[in-house]
């Protein structure tokens, strides 16, 4: 931790700190920094929510951010979805063929896609494309005093910069996830039926039998959380950017890494909760 150092000019008779003390100090410092960051992000998110419900963002700013987050991400998300579907088909086909169940390929591809891989990989891709860009833009604005300029002109930077980006990520990342799911289904179908020659009707029937509305719902619900995480973490990192080009680069990298880790963590928690909810409500009627 910055600020905790050891001096050699200790008074006579005083014991020099040992390796254990260094270790405790380093780890203690990391814990304090971690707790402090969580607190900072919470306060940052709280201020953002207060602004979101008290004053509507300008239409121009909102549309610009919707365009950057939504429209410009479409190609990369569609491509990601398509390849996930095709790779799933490649990976699963041999295993399923060994036990003579290749006709069931549609079930595993589409179920994995809509429940897990579509939302998580789309969010990961968007954390890289959208999150890093948000952190870099806001970080550059920080180091070039543009955020201070906003403040001096009576505009709250959180209202002006964060709220539109949050809304864009919150609303459009689920939409992009649906696009990734759809393209994944198309990619998986193409590779399974056209390339591997699996029966078209069996593929579709198995997909329809095993993929439920709840799978689709849980995948899309998770993507709302992922969108919120990407927006808040990236804006926070941009706002706390250090000076210079290196500072902006670090902010962009940290935004991606932190978003990615949080996406995986939140995904696990949400899966546990959604599964618990599903089995509590529908499990008695469910059978394979």
């Amino acid at each position: 931790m910055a600020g905790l150092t050891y001096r050699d000019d200790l008074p006579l008779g005083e014991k020099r700190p040992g390796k254990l003390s260094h270790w405790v100090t380093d780890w203690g410092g990391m814990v304090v920094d971690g707790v402090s960051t969580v607190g900072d992000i919470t306060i940052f998110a709280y201020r953002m929510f207060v602004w979101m419900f008290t004053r509507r963002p300008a239409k121009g700013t909102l549309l610009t951010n919707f365009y950057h987050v939504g429209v410009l991400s479409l190609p990369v998300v569609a491509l990601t979805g398509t390849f996930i579907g095709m790779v799933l088909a490649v990976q699963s086909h041999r295993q399923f063929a060994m036990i003579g169940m290749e006709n069931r390929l549609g079930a595993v591809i589409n179920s994995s896609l809509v429940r897990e891989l579509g939302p998580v990989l789309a969010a990961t891709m968007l954390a890289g494309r959208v999150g890093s860009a948000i952190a870099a833009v806001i970080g550059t604005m920080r180091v070039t005093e543009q955020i201070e300029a906003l403040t001096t002109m009576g505009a709250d930077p959180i209202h002006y910069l964060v709220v539109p980006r949050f809304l864009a990520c919150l609303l459009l990342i689920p939409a992009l996830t649906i696009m990734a799911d759809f393209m994944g289904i198309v990619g998986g179908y193409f590779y399974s039926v056209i390339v591997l020659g699996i029966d078209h009707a069996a593929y579709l029937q198995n997909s329809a039998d095993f993929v439920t509305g709840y799978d689709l719902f849980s995948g899309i619900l998770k993507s709302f959380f992922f969108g919120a995480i990407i927006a808040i973490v990236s804006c926070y990192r941009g706002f706390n950017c250090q000076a210079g080009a290196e500072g902006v680069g670090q902010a962009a990298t940290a935004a991606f890494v932190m978003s990615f880790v949080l996406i995986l963590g939140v995904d696990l928690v949400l899966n546990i909760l959604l599964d618990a909810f599903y089995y509590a409500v529908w499990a008695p009627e469910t059978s394979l």
Partner: protein
Amino acid sequence: MTPDKAEEFDFQSVPLDPDTLDDVAKADCPIVDVRGVTVRFESQTILKEIDLQIQRGQTLAIIGESGCGKTVLMKTIVGLIPPSEGTVIFDGRDLGRISQQEMTRTRRRFGFVFQNAALFDSMNIFDNVAFPILQHEKASDSEIEGRVMEKLSEVGLPPEAAMKFPAEISGGMRKRVGLARALILQPELVVYDEPTTGLDPIMSDVINELILATRRNYPVTSVVVTHDMRTARKVANRVVMLYPRRRLQADQSQMLFDGSPSDLDHADDRRVRQFVRGEAGERINELIRETAAISQSNAGT
């Protein structure tokens, strides 16, 4: 009323309007009153117990070497940096005690010209200059256009420049756009952060002339942070010199000079005269000693 009649007029008989009384009182008190301001960043003290009053209509230049806290003081004056101790009073109101909404309204009365202009990259020049109007006023498109083009013309920018983006114009043009943006709402207090840094001598003088023209055309109070002595002498009617806190004894004041620009050359303090003349003097040896002390301190940790 003719001058003769004015002499005969009995001012005592006229009942004073409370608003007028308020105006008279306001005219007497400083527009900015900095009282015992200390600013610390973590363990580092940048400003310590600064007292400074700025009268209405005054153009104050804050000079001093890099790292002495000029910009921090200026940002504290406009409420961008909250003081660790002390108060900043703007037009009779303590900036530390007013609500967020009041602060936003108060900021309408400030104009801030940033060192590197701080123009919004994503907007063209027109939108940059129009931004404060859109934030604070409900004006029609034609009115906004008229005001923006007039302000751009005042700072010597052609109408074609309005549609360009900040990355497409020169440093001097960016500074002038920054000035136009700061003046668009006709603020009462304009602060300039290093307005001539990085400009050629001609463009520096253009900026100086624009600062003077602003003072002539509007009833504005100005604070100019600079280490360009030509700018300080030309635009200011009062100069304050700050000295880095870390190089002073605990009981020494950080403000080495407070007077008119013409008194700078005859200042009692040797450090002021050296700064004004741009003489390094013993500074290089001081820097070497400071570096050695830091290295020794680091080696001990």
